[in-house]
């Protein structure tokens, strides 16, 4: 995350002067449970992609490929909806959860 600004540097009234900046706000740290997909079971039905309230399911050419852990808040809707139970929710502190695809346990914004 960018260095936090001091009060003198901010626009008045808490206004945000740039459009479409929600992606810069890393909300993945709020997560308690992280979703993990077993691609051996997944049928690429994309119901998880449809239902995720935070648009955190990565899809590449019709294939469900993983998660945006910077913004996934761990709500578990994807795991609940998955018709073949390919998604499990694992406690963030559980070593079996392992690191995410960038080798970080708790996701951080790319530098």
């Amino acid at each position: 995350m960018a260095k936090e600004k001091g009060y003198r540097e901010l626009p008045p009234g808490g206004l945000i002067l740039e459009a479409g900046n929600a992606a810069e706000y890393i909300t993945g740290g709020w997560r308690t449970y992280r979703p993990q997909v077993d691609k051996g079971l997944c049928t690429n039905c994309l119901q998880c992609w449809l239902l995720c309230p935070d648009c955190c399911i990565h899809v590449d050419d019709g294939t469900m490929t993983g998660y945006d852990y910077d913004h996934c808040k761990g709500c578990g809707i994807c795991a609940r909806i998955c018709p073949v139970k390919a998604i499990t929710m694992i406690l963030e502190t559980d070593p079996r959860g392992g690191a995410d695809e960038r080798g970080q346990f708790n996701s951080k914004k790319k530098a």
Partner: protein
Amino acid sequence: MGRVVALTGNEAAAEAMRQIDPDVVAAYPITPQTELMHKFADFVADGLVKTEVILVESEHSAMSACVGACAAGARVMTATSANGLALMWEIVYIAASLRLPIVMTVVNRALSGPINIHCDHSDTMGCRDSGWIQLYGENPQEAYDNLIQALKIAEHPDILLPVMPTYDGFIISHTLERLEVLGDDEVKRFVGEFKPAHPLLDLSRPVTYGPLDLQDYYFEHKKAQAEAMKRAKGVVRAVGEEYGRLTGRSYGFFDAYRTEDAEQIILCLGSSAGTAKEVVDELREKGRRVGVLKLRMFRPFPAEELAGAIGHASAIAVLDRAEGFNGVSGPVGLEVRSALYGRSAALVGNYIYGLGGRDLRPELIVQVFDDLAGGRAPLLEAAHLGVRE
């Protein structure tokens, strides 16, 4: 240049609004503000202003509409009293924290209950910490003058804070007095054109108003708001001086009357200052060294300047037209005491008076000066002036 007219406080405020011709006015009627909006609605119906009037179903909606219109980029005004202001509360804070330069006349009236339509300052004192600049007027002339200056203060690019010019319900709002009004073009020139910094309707520069603001930035935004309030002092002074050059009536943070050599000083707000000045003149005839300081600007609080103006007195009485329900002091009393702390050795007594429109008779003011002179000022706990035991 000035035109001499006879108007009530409400008519004077409506006249100022006609001359300003704001883009949007959203309001809901409440006594004693109602007559102001009646009069302004006449101007709208007669085509004398281009203002879009939004008639809403409550004061909460009135202030919400003001917030929306001001964020959109409009010059916005409204008016209310007492319970109407109380119903706005939530949005009153939001207007200030979004830094929207809305001007809202508050015609001071006692808050319910028991229900009462007459003057005290419980309404505006209740929202003294809401982040609005507050200017208290003494008479219809000041109701007119403060409203015009309020707009220029609010919209100053270094400030961008809403302003609440007030005057006493019925005592001023419904009293016909002689005053001087400016020409329409003089007012328009003085207030200038409103150039909103970040209008929502400017689609080429998209902006978000009111996003979620958590532990990481809320504190910084509050600090910036507090700093803007501090800067407002300089702008209130500069605008008051500029207004003085135009009209011959300069305005500052307060109006000190015969205080320079005074040993006892009464400090009060609004119409009571007029009565207090009369009493001061009478007592001065008898050789008493007394004076009165009328506080015009309560927010921001001019602590240092106030201490400079009254700190030399041996005893000061602060008259509060609102009960603080803290068992100690009214709201103005508390702030004057802390302003003098470390700056002056004057003893500060505090009186609660005039609740629900109870008259402040000259005899009561004489009694206060006698208390101050006789070492009987209520120093540790406010006394209630003119209440039956």
